[in-house]
């Protein structure tokens, strides 16, 4: 029996310092996937890494062996990572819990900002890499595609996505209470957290033409500047340049205040008291709340924005519950599919065995009868078929329906023993050789489909897949 498992760590279980050690640069993901697939007990594998999580999804024959293989894979990723260090932060799920985990992650139910749209693109990226490096197979392909469709279903059927969107909209709505026309306004983006990027995007959509950007990593600032057609400024100078900004969006991974009341006071003075609008979406906060006391400066943090959204807690909980309901339902569907996958070879084998017996017996009878008219031959053949089919029919129907139930594997095992069926060879796994040509063609088709899908569903919010230098990855891991 094949099992789907996941081992990983996320913002909920591990500190950023550990997470960033495990992130593999995009350029070396292929290598990492090969290393993963080198573990003989792993049939299919996929590595998902975002700023908030690193996870390995795999299809294995034995759950525990799979867990320890993936653990070993993580330990091998970085020299300074040891098993003792890693173990307390890892979560391991198998079977329906692993399926549910993937569905929840893809639907952004497990994200730091629930409902944020980036994760779907990141899952697609991970899947594309797995396809490119032939590490995914029949089960993972079906599973990830299902996860993507579940995410879309949740997005369209619940209002869970509105949370993230509405918080960044709220920032824009609030800014509209200070500024009537954005086209002459300048926005400054400090750090590159998801929420701030979303908000900056809404500001640009609402007419802000000039965007100043600053992050600790100059390369990162460069790619952001390209995205917003903005100007990148050195991180060390941003406080001095702050007076140029009408709107300051702050979202870094720093654990202390980056902007204090004195800085804002000075900026407002340099602006000749023209109002400044500051949004701090970082957790923990990066702008000192004392800034609220500064005249003509308006500071809002994430709680204020969420408060402004006025979506009451009950509604959010209700939407989350509905989303979880959808996940549960889809996990059920997927489990049935996995079980039927198990039953199909048994049914086929039974059918083949019966047909072989029938054929052999008919041939034997024919040779005994001598010459017969074609009518008589047909009658004989029909008799044999009739008996075989009538006998098998009940068993096949029972097997098919039993395969969908929770103890389906027991029935299948019983059928194999009663009828003396052989155990099937393992599912063709892509990296294991046979039928590679066909797999290849299938994967290319998958990739093309995924890309077409991507361009249709992803807006500009999607991260460019090309950013691949090591620094970028470290930066992404630190949330900066």
């Amino acid at each position, binding site marked *: 029996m094949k099992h789907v498992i996941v081992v990983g760590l996320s913002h909920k279980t591990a500190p950023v310092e550990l997470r960033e050690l495990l992130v593999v640069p995009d350029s070396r993901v292929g290598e990492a996937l090969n290393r993963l697939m080198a573990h003989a007990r792993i049939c299919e594998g996929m590595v998902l890494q975002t700023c908030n999580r690193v996870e390995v999804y795999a299809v294995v024959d034995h759950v525990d062996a799979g867990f320890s293989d993936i653990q070993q894979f993580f330990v091998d990723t970085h020299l300074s990572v040891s098993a003792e260090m890693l173990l307390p932060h890892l979560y391991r799920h198998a079977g329906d819990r692993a399926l549910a985990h993937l569905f929840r992650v893809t639907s952004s139910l497990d994200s730091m900002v629930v409902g944020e749209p980036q994760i779907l693109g990141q899952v697609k990226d991970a899947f594309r890499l797995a396809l490119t490096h032939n590490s995914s197979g029949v089960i993972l392909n079906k599973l990830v595609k299902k996860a993507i469709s579940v995410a879309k279903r949740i997005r369209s059927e619940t209002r869970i996505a509105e949370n993230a969107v509405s918080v960044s909209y709220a920032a824009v709505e609030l800014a509209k*209470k200070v*500024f*009537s026309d954005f086209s002459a306004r300048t926005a400054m983006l400090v750090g590159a957290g998801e929420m701030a990027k979303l908000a900056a995007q809404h500001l640009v959509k609402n007419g802000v033409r000039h965007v100043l950007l600053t992050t600790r990593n100059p390369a990162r600032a460069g790619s952001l500047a390209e995205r917003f057609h903005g100007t990148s400024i050195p991180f060390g100078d941003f406080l001095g340049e702050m007076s140029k900004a009408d709107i300051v969006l702050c979202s870094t991974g720093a654990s202390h205040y980056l902007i204090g009341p004195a800085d804002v006071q000075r900026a407002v003075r340099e602006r000749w008291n023209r*109002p400044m609008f500051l949004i701090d979406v970082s957790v923990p906060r990066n702008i000192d709340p004392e800034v609220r006391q500064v005249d003509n400066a308006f500071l809002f943090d994430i709680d204020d924005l969420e408060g402004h959204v006025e979506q009451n807690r009950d509604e959010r909980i209700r939407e989350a519950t509905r989303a979880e309901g959808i996940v549960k339902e889809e996990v059920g569907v997927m489990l049935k599919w996995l079980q039927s996958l198990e039953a199909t070879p048994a049914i086929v084998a039974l059918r083949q065995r019966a047909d072989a017996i029938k054929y052999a017996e008919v041939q034997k009878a024919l040779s005994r009868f001598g010459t017969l008219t074609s009518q008589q031959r047909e009658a004989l053949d029909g008799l044999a078929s009739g008996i075989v089919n009538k006998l098998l029919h009940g068993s096949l129907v029972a097997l098919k329906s039993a395969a969908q139930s929770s103890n389906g594997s027991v029935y299948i095992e019983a059928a194999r023993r009663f009828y003396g069926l052989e155990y099937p060879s393992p599912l063709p796994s892509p990296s294991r050789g046979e039928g590679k040509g066909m797999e290849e063609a299938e994967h290319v088709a998958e990739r093309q489909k995924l890309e077409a899908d991507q361009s249709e569903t992803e807006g500009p919010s999607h991260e460019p897949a090309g950013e691949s230098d090591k620094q970028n990855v470290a930066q992404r891991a630190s949330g900066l």
Partner: protein
Amino acid sequence: MMLPFLQLTAGLYFAGTLLSLVYLLRRSHVVAKIALGVTCVGFAVHSIVLASQVFSVEGLKWVTFQTALSFFSWSLVCVFLLVVLRQSLYVLGSFILPLAFLSSASAVIVPSETSALQPVVQAVWVHVTLSMLGTVGFAVAFVAGLMYLIQDRLLKSKQFNVLSFKLPPLDVLDTLNQRSIVLGFPLLTLGILTGAVSARLTFGEYVSWNSEQIWALVTWVFYLVVLMGRITVGWRAKKAAYLTIVGFTGVLLTFLGVMLKGTTPSISS
């Protein structure tokens, strides 16, 4: 003779004021539109009253305090209607209409004999008109400043209620404040100059240093400083809002002083 019509005007402005205040608490624009309609009717009646006074036998030869107040409220409503036509900023009515009502009501209350200015020279109406228009500018600046401070306070305390939803963005209010002073100040300057000239023609002196004149000059200097401060050292936003509120309070006190004295000052602003 025109008093009943002036009373009708004041009544209509009162209705407009009440409706505008109700509008502050409601999310729909319907009340605002009714208030606007009522105000328009009041404005039409008011225009007829003023026109009949201007074209009457006495004409502009002598200007009573009543006419000056009446003209002031008419100009306020006129500015309000112009702004609403351009920007559909209905909420402005909730702040301007009370002022317009108060000044038209004062016009009804003050005895029509109380003449602010003696029928000395024909040019006197020019002085009164200009000074009143200047004051209208300061009144609008005052209203903008008041709205600015309210919006500022609501934003700072994170109260996103009906009021914050209705009030325009801070920069719109600051611009309104600035433009009103920029327009009002030259008008007041011209008003004071024409006043001085007519005083020279009447009494042989440009200034007689009575309290009204001193107040007028103080007001003028005050707004000059406010204007200069904005241009040179960035007295804008919250500071400008505070200053214009203080300034207009001074103007109101001057008015009140003139009214309470009930005397016949030679020149007022």
